[in-house]
């Protein structure tokens, strides 16, 4: 017979960690997507003097391991005596990291819109902005969605790294329980299951949208 010393309180503790994971993911993806759209638009259409420096910064964000970014940002926070929580630092760093990847996805989506289609929109008297909001973004969204869903799921797993700056999210809370009850396989399985349950609906939603749009194309 299977026995465990995992208590209901531990499960609640895990779920609390999962809540933190979700909330960091939410803010990171929200901020990262908003910034990513802006940066992606710059990468796709801005003149070189804006495009080059933005591309350079995004390259740095994508090349330096996320863990190092977290630790550095948290240290700078302490050095500069900024009065912000580790949670905020985690969200901001992860949002910038997400933005760097999202920018490339958005850029790819925008460049996938045929110039002739945009020309047709402009020829009807639409302004640059009307063309962007009514033609370019909706078409780019369909191209970019699968990669964006992938990015979101990736970011959710990357949140595990914030434990290094002292935030108790899902992975950290399972580690704490493992240390106490010494049942790593069981506890980590539960943590893994919770990650899956959080990711699955997002993946499903993406698949459903994709299918609906494909029917029209």
């Amino acid at each position: 017979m299977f026995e465990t010393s995992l208590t209901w309180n531990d499960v609640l503790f895990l779920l609390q960690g999962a809540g933190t994971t979700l909330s960091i993911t939410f803010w990171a993806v929200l901020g990262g997507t908003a910034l990513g759209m802006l940066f992606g638009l710059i990468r796709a259409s801005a003149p070189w003097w804006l495009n080059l420096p933005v591309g350079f910064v995004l390259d740095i964000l994508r090349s330096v391991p996320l863990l190092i970014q977290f630790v550095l940002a948290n240290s700078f926070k302490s050095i500069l005596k900024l009065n912000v929580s580790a949670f905020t630092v985690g969200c901001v760093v992860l949002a910038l990291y997400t933005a760097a990847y999202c920018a490339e996805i958005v850029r790819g989506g925008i460049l996938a819109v045929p110039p002739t289609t945009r020309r047709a929109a402009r020829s009807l008297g639409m302004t640059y902005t009307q063309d962007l909001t009514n033609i370019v973004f909706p078409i780019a969204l369909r191209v970019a969605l699968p990669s964006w869903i992938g990015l979101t799921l990736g970011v959710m797993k990357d949140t595990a790294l914030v434990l290094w700056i002292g935030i108790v999210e899902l992975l950290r809370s399972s580690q704490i329980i493992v240390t106490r009850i010494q049942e790593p396989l069981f506890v980590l399985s539960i943590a893994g299951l919770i990650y899956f349950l959080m990711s699955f609906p997002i993946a499903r939603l993406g698949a459903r949208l994709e299918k609906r749009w494909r029917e029209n194309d």
Partner: protein
Amino acid sequence: MIELKDVRKSFGSLEVLKGVSLTVQKGEVLSVIGGSGSGKSTMLMCINGLEPIQGGQILVDGTDVHARGTDLNKLRQKIGIVFQQWNAFPHLTVLENVMLAPRKVLGKSKREAEEIAVRQLTHVGLGEKLKVYPSKLSGGQQQRMAIARALAMQPDYMLFDEVTSALDPQLVGEVLDTLKMLSEEGMTMILVTHEIRFARDVSDRVAFFHKGLIHEIGTPEQVIGNPQKPETIEFLKSVL
């Protein structure tokens, strides 16, 4: 009235229009014929300001298209253009494709825009396809939708850039019929085309383009029926 005065246009070091002068009166149908790369399509892009020019002047109802301070978005409202590639907006239904510009550019209400769109789509024979997405239409139907989309802006001028060139031969007829209908309704049209017989049939005047210049211009009987210049004769021999 559309007036071109000694218009010059280059892409880099390649001069595509080498001083084109032309006047198109209200209600007139002008067909532009000529070999590929002779500058015909480029001229259309210049007329509604989609391409800048390097010299000369283009006036539409007296407004200098390429002058600083000309509101191109406003100007384009009265110049419809239909391209070789029909350029449907793939994420919108046929009805929404046609409604979009009247709503966003002219600021019409949803009901008004829908009324206009339904009327124009019915006019080009797509009244049954309102709720369909463009991908479900044939090339000829998509091209007619593009025509309705341009007409929905109630333009004073229509420019057609080889609108049948990308179509399967059996679909060309339906689009030409639509063009013919428009010409009979008195729409002012500039028609860049390879359909010489059609041009002869519907045009008030025909212009023959060769190497960035108008070599011959006149009635269809003159230019197509009794061409004077050796280049025109050569070209017509090769396409007829």
